[in-house]
Each structure stands twice: as structure tokens, then as C-alpha cells.
């Protein structure tokens, strides 16, 4: 298995996709951290720098970069089908479940330093910018917990991406589908009264439960959200594995 994980890492780091997505994730997290810090207390609805809600908001914004890691996972899986390397991959390892398991493991492990980098960018931006504006939020237990929660979201979304890729296989379809789901379907579900109760059980609801407990309409506890999100990641990977093992590779 470790040979297969290393093989996945070789695949990942011998093209530049990961670099672009990592930079995108850092830019998104750092950019929004700077925006919230710059507007803190000045724009209506944004808490002031010394407000704990500001700290939670600015440290949880990193979780939004999860969309880049989701795409990383999707591309990691679907490129095998898009570029037809699934053939040599499955010829080398005919037990396809092992390939997908190795991919999930490889991407989960790679997502950890990537998530740490995204968090580090966020913290550095906040400390420098908020410090310059007079009051940097402390890295106390509360805020570290928020950062850890964001990091968890980033890692789990990478795994979900691999699972979605194994399910859908068509790269464009998988990415578009995932983005439409997260940005169109979930917000609509959350906004319709009759079915908004379902939102807390969806991945987006789980993310919100993990990263914020303010402005929360009806969400799970953070730890419940974490388990739910992990379950989504695992189910996607398991269903993807089961399908990949049965489907014909042409």
C-alpha cells in the first residue's frame, strides 16, 4: 500500500495542477482574511477587531478554500479516466479497490500540509494586518479550535473530491456538478422553509456546524458536524471504490 501511495504522490507532484490549486486556496483564504480585517468594525454587519466574533469569522474563512482542495481531489481521480491512464494504473494494480484506497490516503495525507499552509497564510495575514490596525486577535484556545476546524474541513473535502471523482469520472462533469451543488443547490435548500431542516445534514451544513456557532439557524454541534463531514468523505470514497471495481475500463 505504501508503494501505491508513493505512486499517487509521484502522479500528483509531476504535474503542476497541485501548485495552482494550492496557490488559489492560499490566495482565497488570505484575501478574505485581509478583506474582513480591513473592513472590521467599519462595514455594517462586520464585527470590530476586538469582537470574538471577528476572530471566529476571520479564522474560519480559510474553510472556504476547501473548494480548491475538493477540485484537487476530483482532478486527482478523474485524470485517470480523462487521460486514460486508468488502463496502465489498473493493469499495474488489478485490485482496483487498492488503487482508490491509496489515492484517498495519499490525498488525505497531502492535504494536511496544504491545509496547514492555508491556515498559516490566514494567521500571518490576520496578525500583520489586524496588528497594524491596532488589535490582532490572540491565538487562544477558542481561535486555535476554529483554525483546527477549518483545517479539518480542508482535508475532508480533499477526500470527498477523490470520492466524487470515482463516482462521476467525467472531470468537467464532476467539478461543475460539485460547484453547482455547493453554490446553488445547498443555498436553495437552506432558504426554503419547508426543507431547510435538511440543510444541517448536508455537507455545507456540516461545514457551518464545524466552523461557526454564530448566526447559526439550526445546525448540529461542531463535533457532530465533523463526524457527518467525515462520513460524507468516506461514503463517497467507498461508493467510488465499489463502482470503480465493477465498471469496465475502456
Amino acid at each position: 500500500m505504501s508503494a501505491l501511495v508513493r505512486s499517487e504522490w509521484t502522479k500528483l507532484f509531476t504535474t503542476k495542477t497541485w501548485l495552482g490549486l494550492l496557490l488559489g486556496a492560499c490566495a482565497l483564504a488570505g484575501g478574505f482574511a485581509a478583506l474582513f480585517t480591513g473592513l472590521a468594525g467599519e462595514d455594517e454587519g462586520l464585527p470590530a477587531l476586538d469582537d470574538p466574533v471577528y476572530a471566529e469569522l476571520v479564522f474560519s474563512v480559510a474553510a472556504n478554500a476547501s473548494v480548491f482542495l475538493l477540485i484537487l481531489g476530483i482532478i486527482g481521480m478523474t485524470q485517470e479516466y480523462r487521460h486514460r491512464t486508468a488502463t496502465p494504473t489498473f493493469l499495474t494494480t488489478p485490485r482496483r479497490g487498492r488503487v482508490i484506497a491509496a489515492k484517498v490516503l495519499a490525498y488525505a495525507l497531502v492535504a494536511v500540509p496544504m491545509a496547514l499552509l492555508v491556515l498559516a497564510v490566514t494567521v500571518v495575514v490576520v496578525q500583520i494586518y489586524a496588528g497594524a490596525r491596532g488589535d490582532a486577535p490572540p491565538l487562544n484556545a477558542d481561535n486555535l479550535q476554529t483554525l483546527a476546524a477549518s483545517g479539518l474541513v480542508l482535508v475532508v473535502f480533499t477526500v470527498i473530491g477523490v470520492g466524487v471523482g470515482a463516482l462521476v469520472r467525467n472531470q468537467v462533469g464532476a467539478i461543475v456538478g460539485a460547484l453547482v451543488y455547493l453554490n446553488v443547490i445547498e443555498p436553495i435548500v437552506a432558504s426554503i422553509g419547508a426543507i431547510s431542516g435538511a440543510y444541517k445534514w448536508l455537507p455545507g451544513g456540516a461545514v457551518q456546524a464545524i466552523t461557526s456557532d454564530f448566526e447559526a439557524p439550526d445546525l448540529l454541534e461542531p463535533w457532530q458536524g465533523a463526524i457527518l463531514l467525515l462520513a460524507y468523505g468516506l461514503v463517497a470514497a467507498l461508493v467510488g471504490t465499489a463502482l470503480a471495481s465493477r465498471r469496465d475500463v475502456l
Partner: protein
Amino acid sequence: MALGLLVADSGGATFNGRPYRDLPEPTRTVGAVLETAFHPARSGRNHLRVYCRAAGYPIARADEVLQQVGLADAGDRRAGGYSLGMRQRLALATALLGDPSVLVLDEPANGLDPEGIQWLRGFLRHLAHTEGRTVLVSSHLLAEVEQTVDRVVIVGAGRLVREGSIAELRAGAEGAGSVVVRSPEAGRLAGLLQGLGRHVELEDASRLVVTGTTTEEVGATAFAAGVELHELASRSSGLEQIYFQLTSGTEQYAAAPAGSATLQEVSR
């Protein structure tokens, strides 16, 4: 199907007595080139390293097989920029990583230029005859196959049509032992040969196809009668002709029944 990529409705295939997916180190037993599949942004060398790692071979194997297929200089270029021939070579290199005793190649000559085809011919012979590997080639380039292979398996519409060495197939084919003669006095020669009990077909005013005879007999007959000859050749059926004879009517994608009938005529 033999390699476990497609699920068979029934039946199975084994290598050294085991289904492909049950082989402990499959790419050490069987190396396959089914399609030339690479990530376009990855270099040829890195492509090979991926599969070295997955199979647990030393990374240096990537350089060895690049050398073997003559791609050593192009190893660090993006595979997306390779020519068709280079892709074929890289795919072949991938199959050779595990130093397998069996090679399965699907249309390996596709897209190769004349030098590439000549190289491939020599390389496959080297793998089979010098190194003693089994090389299974599927191809539609029958003239090419004829120059390379030892044994032929003809499959038509999913069924085994014929199996054997090229010589065996030739011997069993229609038109075996026929002789083509060109002469300004074709009509007179035809009469003489018919007199010997040979079957003669007059293709046009100066050309005969005689069956059940030898070039020696035709030559001697002509000489004795003082018939001038412009051409005297024994006709051996090409693999292509044999193929059409054996598969006509069974071809799944024949344009129309009339189409296959025409093909059969051509082969006669």
C-alpha cells in the same frame, strides 16, 4: 478482458494458470500496451516512474526501459508533445517495466513512420527470439503482421476462425499451389495445360491462373511447345487474402453482403 479491465459475461483467461488479477506481480508476468495513455503534462520519465513506484520496481527501471525503446533523449519532455511514434514507444516502455515474459500489444504499429515500423519489427523479433518472450500482437495491418509473426490467430466477429503458422494457413487457403503465367500466346498455353488436366482460368488475353500445378511443369510445357513467356510465378496467398477468405460473411461491420462478396472475389 484477459487483463481484467472488462468483465467477461462467461469464461476466463489465465496467464501461467492464473487469472490476471490473481497474479502476485501482474506486470512481471504480462506487459500490455492497450492504448497510448499518458498525462500530457507529465514527462515520459515521470510517467514511467509512477508505475515503477506502484509496482515496487526500482526507479532506475524507468531510465533502462527508456533506453531500450530509444527514448532516452526525450525522457524529460512532456508526453503531450510526443509524436505518435514516440507515444507508441513510451507505451511499450511502460509494458517492459516489469521485464515480463508475456507481452500483449494492441496495434503497436499504429501511427509509426516507416523507420518506426522497421524498428518495431526488429524490436519485437528481438524480444521474442533473442530474449525468449511471448509476444501477442493484435493488428489490422495484415501485411505488417505477416512480416513479423510466427503464428496467427484469426478472429472474425468475436469467434476464432483459424489458428496456425503462416505457412499452415497458406497451405490451407484457396488458391494454394496456383501459378500465374503471362504470355502473348496465353490461349494456346491454356489449351496445352488443360490437355494435362490442369484447371486454367484465363484472366485476360495474356494472363492465366493455373491451379494444381507447379512453375516447373508450366515452364516445361511452354518450352516444349515453344510458347514465349513474360511472367511465370507461383502465387502464395497473402495473409490479407487468407483473412478475407476465412472471414467473409462473418465480418461484423461489413458494409453490405455485396461488399464482402466483392472482397472474396478479389482474393481469388
